[in-house]
């Protein structure tokens, strides 16, 4: 049974989504919720099994690599699956608010969301370069229609831009796969490493294409231009998933590649370059976030910045940095989902998200503002929170390896995050003068308020759960410590 769990983790939601499309609005919202619950259960079983037995593999069709494709649930995949399940559960409950009633819109939402969930799981479990290309496309092509659910008129330009970049990025990645296959004669992550490490031009080109393609998908500066409009205009539940999981999936790939196919690049100039890109993302994203006039765009640019932290793993490349980067991904996922859901509640209540016109929200939307505040603590990297633990680990790694400049980047990044977050909270607390909020909708229901709050609380609690999580992650593969 255990070895079938990875398959179920992918195909429960995938089949659920396909059948939702088939059923139309029949079965809403019971069917998708049942599928979501089953998926969460399956992922929990899988994570439990990985925790106790180590990694689980499943050769699809019974064909072992290099001929066939392997699903592999190791520590890294397990923590990402767990993140997806947590955020997915919260988003599924939240979505009962805006997408709970039967309508074509709701059908599309649930079908696409379940498909996206399955796609993400497929991506995290894949151990095959070309299969990862297909899962990347799956993720992209379920994510973009989700963005459009906010109303095509508003989002079509953003979606188009997103699509162009995503397509170009994945084709660049595919070129890398093609050359890798030419070199190695295999597509399995565990088998292509030696060929990519031979130092030749073709190996370099392949590595460059793989990295470049993934960087475009991960919206790392300067390839970030598609992200803010897409994340800033999508429905709240979708923005949460996009920021917490979808871009994270691309960065996850980069980390994954670093441990296997591209392990040879560790300690090279490429690693420093990736770190520099990360620093650029942190500074640029934070400054842009500070300059935005719309709440959702602040949160979206914050994602651009926060992804940069994960790239700091590459120049540091020690076990602590690995833990820190992955934990940052998890903490940011939870916190950012909470931020977007809370923002969604603000928009549902006020009808817009123009910062200057949001004053004194803390009373009518106490729970959502509270969630926003809790999640912000993690985003700012302040204790006690998951973001802080991650920052601590990265800082320690920077100091330990004597690369103090990355420590400075981390510290300044935290301060910049505080600057744009506090700017938002100021408006929430500000009572007079200035116009009170012009209310357009009812106070969001408990179904919409609590997922944000619970995620926010989790972001704080993650300040205390690092030890078991990192034990599940199992340390930097191949590290001697």
């Amino acid at each position: 049974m255990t070895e079938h769990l990875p398959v179920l983790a992918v195909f429960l939601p995938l089949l659920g989504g396909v059948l939702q499309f088939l059923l139309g609005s029949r079965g809403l919202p019971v069917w998708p919720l049942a599928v979501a619950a089953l998926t969460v259960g399956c992922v929990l079983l899988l994570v439990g099994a990985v925790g106790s037995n180590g990694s689980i593999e499943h050769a699809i069709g019974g064909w072992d690599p290099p001929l066939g494709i392997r699903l592999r649930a190791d520590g890294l995949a397990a923590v990402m699956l767990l993140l997806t399940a947590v955020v997915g559960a919260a988003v599924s409950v939240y979505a009962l608010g805006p997408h709970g009633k039967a309508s074509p819109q709701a059908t599309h939402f649930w079908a696409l969301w379940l498909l996206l969930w399955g796609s993400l799981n497929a991506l995290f479990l894949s151990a095959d370069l070309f299969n990862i290309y297909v899962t990347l496309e799956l993720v992209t092509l379920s994510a973009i229609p989700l963005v459009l659910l906010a109303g095509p008129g508003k989002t079509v330009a953003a979606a188009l831009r997103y699509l162009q970049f995503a397509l170009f990025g994945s084709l660049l990645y595919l070129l890398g796969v093609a050359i890798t296959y030419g070199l190695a004669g295999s597509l399995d992550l565990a088998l292509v490493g030696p060929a990519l490490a031979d130092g030749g031009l073709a190996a370099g080109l392949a590595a460059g294409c793989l990295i470049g393609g993934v960087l475009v998908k991960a919206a790392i500066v300067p390839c970030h231009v598609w992200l803010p409009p897409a994340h800033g205009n999508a429905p709240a539940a979708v923005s949460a998933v996009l920021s917490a999981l979808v871009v994270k999936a691309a960065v996850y790939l980069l980390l994954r590649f670093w441990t296997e196919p591209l392990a040879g690049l560790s300690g090279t100039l490429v690693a420093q370059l990736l770190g520099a890109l990360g620093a650029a993302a942190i500074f640029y994203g934070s400054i842009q976030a500070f300059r935005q006039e719309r709440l959702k765009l602040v949160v979206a640019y914050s994602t651009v910045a926060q992804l940069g932290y994960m790239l700091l793993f590459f120049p540091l490349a020690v076990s602590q940095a690995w833990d820190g980067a992955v934990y940052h991904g998890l903490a940011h996922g939870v916190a950012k989902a909470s931020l977007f859901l809370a923002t969604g509640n603000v928009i549902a209540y006020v009808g817009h998200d123009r910062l200057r016109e949001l004053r004194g929200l803390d009373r009518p939307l106490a729970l959502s503002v509270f969630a926003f505040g809790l999640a912000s603590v993690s985003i700012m990297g302040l204790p006690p929170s998951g973001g802080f633990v991650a920052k601590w680990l990265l800082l320690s790694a920077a100091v330990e390896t004597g690369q103090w400049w990355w420590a400075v980047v981390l510290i300044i990044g935290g301060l910049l995050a505080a600057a744009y977050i506090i700017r938002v909270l100021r408006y929430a607390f500000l009572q007079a003068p200035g116009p009170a909020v012009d209310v357009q909708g009812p106070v969001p229901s408990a179904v919409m308020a609590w997922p944000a709050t619970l995620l926010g609380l989790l972001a704080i609690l993650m300040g205390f759960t690092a030890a078991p999580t990192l034990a599940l992650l199992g340390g930097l593969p191949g590290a001697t410590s």
Partner: protein
Amino acid sequence: MSSIPDPFGLAAAALLAVGFYGFVTHRHPLRRLLAINIFGNGVFMTLILVARWMPGGPDPIPHAMVLTGIVIAVSATAFGLALVRRSMTQEDGDRREPDDD
């Protein structure tokens, strides 16, 4: 392995270069989609060459990858074209690029 250099290797490189050029220089979404597809064709050509160079007959695995890639590229492009139609035929107010970069 073929003893004479395949001229199609240059064609693949040319397709990739031209596709890249088009993607960078054009703003019009339809032209960008064209450029992306040309780039994609360069990738497919590369895969086909890799398949052909295997001793003992064309390698079926890159061929399968190309087939998958073509279908994905065409579906994504068709989706993109629907987006283009929608974005270009909307009222003026909505047609602008999102105001954020």
